[in-house]
C-alpha cells in the first residue's frame, strides 16, 4: 500500500466537501501531516494528545512510538478501511511516510438516558444510550464474564451503521446464533437507522403479526437476556436493543418481577395474564352474548345488558367496532401529538367516549365500561410490541364472533393459540409450556 497514493485517493473521495481538514506541521526537523473531518473530532483531545507532544518531544522516532502506544491507535489494513475510519471520527496521521489512525471521536450522544418506555418503580432507572460504545461499556460492566462475545459489523449501504451482536459464547443458543448470522448477512438495505428495523429484516415471512425479537431499552433486561442464552443486537444511534430468540412469555415479564417478593410478583403476573385475556376476549364476548346467546348470562345480568342497550340503534358488533375504533384513534393521536395539544385531544376524546356517546344513545353504558376496561388492560401487557399485536388480533376475533357466534369465538381463540404455537423465532417454538425443573435435558424429542 503506497502512502502517497492512499492519501491522494482519500482526498479524491472528499473532493466535493470542505469538511476535510489537512495540515502539515514542521518544527525542528520534525514533520507530520494529518487529515480529519472537523465536525467529528474532539479538538481539545487532539491538541492535548497529538499536537502538544509533537512540539515537546525531541525526535521523530520517539513521537512515532508515543503515537503507537496510544490506546486510540489503530492499524490500517486497506485504504477503504482508512476512509471509513476517517468518517468514524479518526485522524489519519502520516509519520515518516507511514499512515496511522488515531480515534479521537467526539460523541455527543453517549449520555445514558433514563428509562422512558419500560418504566419500573423498583429497579434501575437507566436506559441504554444512543451510542454503541457506551452501551457495550454498560453491558460489559454489568456482565463480568470473559465469555461475553461481541461481533461488530456495519450495515446500510449508504450510512454504514455499526451493528454489534452481543452474546455469552458459553450459554448462547447455537442454532439461533447461526440463523441470525446467516440472515444478517443477507440484509441488503440502503439506510438503517435503528436496531428495531432488524425485527423485520431478519424475518423471512412477508406478513407477520407477532414480533420475532423483543425490544428493550433497559440494561438490566439486556443482561438478563444474555444470561438466558439470547443474542442481543445493538446499533449505533439507537437506544433500543433487540433480543432473540424469544418465546411468548418473554413479552409478559417485566424486570420488576424479580425485584418483588414472590407472592407479590405472582399476583402481578396473574393480573397481567388476566389483563391479556380481557383485552383479547372481552369485546368479542360482549358481541357473542348480546347478539347470539343472551341466555348464557344469568337472567339479571342479561336484563341489565339489554336494558342498557335500549335505544341503541345498532347491532352489538357495530357498537363495539364504533367504540373500539374511536379508542384506537384516541390512542394513536395521543402518542404523536405535541404535548401542548395532546391534553386537548384526551379531554375531547374522553368526553366522546365517556358520557356524550351514551347520552346520544349511540352506545350503551356497559359498552363504555367494556371499552375502557379493554383499553386499560391492553396497557397492562408489559412489552409494547405485543400490545400492538393483540390490538389487531382483538379485531379479528370480533369479526369471527360476528359471523360464527360464541362457538366461533372459542374456536377463534384456539386457532390463535395454535397459530402462536406454530410460529418460530429463530428455531425456537414461540409458545410452549416449559418445564423449568429439567430445562436442560429433554425427555422427548422434536418432530
Amino acid at each position: 500500500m503506497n502512502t502517497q497514493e492512499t492519501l491522494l485517493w482519500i482526498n479524491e473521495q472528499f473532493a466535493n466537501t470542505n469538511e476535510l481538514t489537512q495540515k502539515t506541521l514542521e518544527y525542528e526537523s520534525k514533520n507530520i501531516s494529518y487529515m480529519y473531518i472537523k465536525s467529528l473530532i474532539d479538538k481539545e483531545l487532539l491538541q492535548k494528545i497529538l499536537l502538544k507532544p509533537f512540539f515537546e518531544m525531541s525526535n521523530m522516532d520517539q513521537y512515532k512510538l508515543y503515537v503507537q502506544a496510544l490506546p486510540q491507535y489503530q492499524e490500517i489494513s486497506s485504504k477503504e478501511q482508512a476512509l471509513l475510519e476517517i468518517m468514524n471520527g479518526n485522524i489519519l496521521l502520516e509519520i515518516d511516510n507511514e499512515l496511522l489512525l488515531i480515534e479521537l471521536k467526539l460523541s455527543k450522544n453517549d449520555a445514558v438516558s433514563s428509562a422512558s418506555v419500560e418504566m419500573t418503580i423498583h429497579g434501575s432507572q437507566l436506559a441504554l444510550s444512543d451510542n454503541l460504545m457506551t452501551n457495550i461499556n454498560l453491558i460489559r460492566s454489568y456482565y463480568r464474564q470473559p465469555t461475553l462475545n461481541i461481533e461488530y459489523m456495519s450495515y446500510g449501504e449508504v450510512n454504514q451503521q455499526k451493528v454489534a451482536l452481543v452474546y455469552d459464547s458459553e450459554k448462547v443458543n447455537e442454532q439461533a446464533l447461526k440463523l441470525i448470522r446467516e440472515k444478517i448477512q443477507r440484509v441488503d438495505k440502503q439506510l438503517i437507522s435503528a436496531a428495531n428495523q432488524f425485527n423485520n429484516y431478519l424475518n423471512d415471512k412477508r406478513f407477520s403479526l407477532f414480533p420475532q425479537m423483543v425490544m428493550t431499552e433497559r440494561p438490566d433486561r439486556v443482561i438478563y437476556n444474555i444470561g438466558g442464552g439470547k443474542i442481543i443486537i445493538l446499533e449505533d444511534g439507537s437506544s433500543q436493543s433487540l433480543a432473540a430468540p424469544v418465546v411468548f412469555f418473554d413479552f409478559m415479564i417485566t424486570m420488576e418481577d424479580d425485584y418483588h417478593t414472590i407472592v407479590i410478583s405472582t399476583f402481578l403476573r396473574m393480573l397481567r395474564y388476566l389483563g391479556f385475556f380481557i383485552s383479547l376476549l372481552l369485546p368479542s364476548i360482549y358481541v357473542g352474548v348480546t347478539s347470539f346467546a343472551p341466555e348464557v348470562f344469568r337472567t339479571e345480568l342479561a336484563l341489565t345488558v339489554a336494558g342498557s342497550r335500549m335505544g341503541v340503534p345498532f347491532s352489538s358488533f357495530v357498537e363495539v367496532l364504533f367504540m373500539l375504533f374511536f379508542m384506537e384513534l384516541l390512542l394513536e393521536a395521543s402518542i404523536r401529538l405535541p404535548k401542548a395539544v395532546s391534553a386537548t385531544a384526551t379531554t375531547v376524546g374522553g368526553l366522546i367516549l365517556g358520557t356524550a356517546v351514551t347520552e346520544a344513545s349511540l352506545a350503551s353504558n356497559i359498552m363504555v365500561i367494556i371499552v375502557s376496561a379493554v383499553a386499560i388492560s391492553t396497557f397492562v401487557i408489559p412489552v409494547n410490541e405485543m400490545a400492538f399485536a393483540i390490538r389487531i388480533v382483538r379485531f379479528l376475533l370480533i369479526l369471527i364472533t360476528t359471523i360464527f357466534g360464541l362457538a366461533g369465538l372459542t374456536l377463534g381463540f384456539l386457532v390463535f393459540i395454535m397459530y402462536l404455537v406454530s410460529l418460530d423465532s429463530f428455531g425456537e417454538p414461540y409458545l410452549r409450556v416449559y418445564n423449568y425443573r429439567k430445562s436442560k435435558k429433554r425427555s422427548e424429542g422434536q418432530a
Partner: protein
Amino acid sequence: MSRYFYYIILINMVANIIASVPYILLHFYNDGSISAMIIATITGTIIITVYAKFFIQFPGQTLPDLLKQTTAKWFYAPLIFIMAVVWFFAGMITLITFTFLLIRYLTPEMPIVLISLSIILSVILGCFIKTDRVLYTIEIVLLLTLPLIIYIFLKAYTDPNINWDFVKEAALYINQMPNFESFTASFYLFLGVANLFIFNRFFTIKQKFGWKQIITIFLITVSTLFTTYFVPIGFHGTENIDHLIYPWIQTSDSLRMKYSLIERVLFVFLLFYLCIAFLSMLIHWHVSVEYLKYLFTFEKIKYRGFNLGIFIPPTLFTLISTYFVQVINEYHLFRLSSFLNITLSVFFPFMIIVFFYIKRRMKYAKNTK
C-alpha cells in the same frame, strides 16, 4: 414416560363424554353395561401397555415407517389407507356430534353448514402444523380448560341433587352378562394410545413405561368411566335414562352456579368441551393427514410454482364432512359411531399381531446387520 404421552391418551378419555359413549352405555344400563365396562377397563389397560411397550422400542419411528421397512407394499399401502380413513371418520364423528350439540343448545337459528364450517376451518389449520406443535397446542389448551372441567365434575359430585341411591341401584346390574356394544363403547376410551402410530415420531428419546405409568392410566380411566356412567344416573335416575340422547349435556344443565356470572353450567360446559372436541379432532385429522402423506407425495402437485398439493387433503376433508353433516341425522350418527366403535375394537387388537411381526422382522434385520 413423557407428559405428552398422557395427553394423547387423556384427550380420548375426556372427549368421550360428548361422543356417543354415555348414550350407548346408559342405553344398556340393565343389560350388562357395568360388566362390559369392567372388562373394557382390563383389556384397555392391557392394550395401552402393549402399544406403549411396542413403540418405546422404536424411538422416533412412526408405524408407517416401521411398516415400510418390514412389509411388502401390497400389505402396507392398503393398511395405511384404511387407517387414514378410520382416523378421518373418528374425527368427523366428533365434528358432527358437536355440530348437533351446538345447533341444539347454543345457536339454534344458525345454519348447520356454517356451524360445522367454523369447526372444520379451525381444525383444518392443524393439518399444516408439525407434529410437535400439535402436542404443544394440546398442552396449552388443556392447561386452560382442564381446571374448569374438573371443577364441573367436582360440582356434579357435590351437588345436592345427585342421588346416590340411584347410583347404588344401577350398580346392582353388575351381575348381567357383558354387552358387546357397551364393551366397544367403553373400549373406545382407551384407544387414544393408537395415536402413537404417528405421534411416536415426537418421542425420539427412549421412554420408560412401567407399573407406575400403568397404574396411573388405570386409575384415570376408572375414574373417567365411573364419572361418565354414574353421574348422569345419579341426577336422572335409571328410569328412562336410556332415552336421553345427550345424557351429559342434560346432566350439566342440571347444575347451577348460583352466584356466578353464568348461572347455567351448560354453557360453560359446552364451550369448554368445544375445546376438548377441537383437540380430539385436531389429533385425529392430523394423524390422518400424516398417513396420507406416507402414501402420496402431495408436494409434487404444483400450479405455477405454487404448492397446491398440500391443500388437497384438507379440502377433501372439508368437502366430505360438510356433505355428511347435512345428510346425517342423530339416529344415523349413533349407528355410525357404534359401528366405528365395533370396527376399532376388532381392528386394534388385531394390530398387535402386526406388531409381533414387525418386531421379529426388525430383530432379524438387526441380527443380519
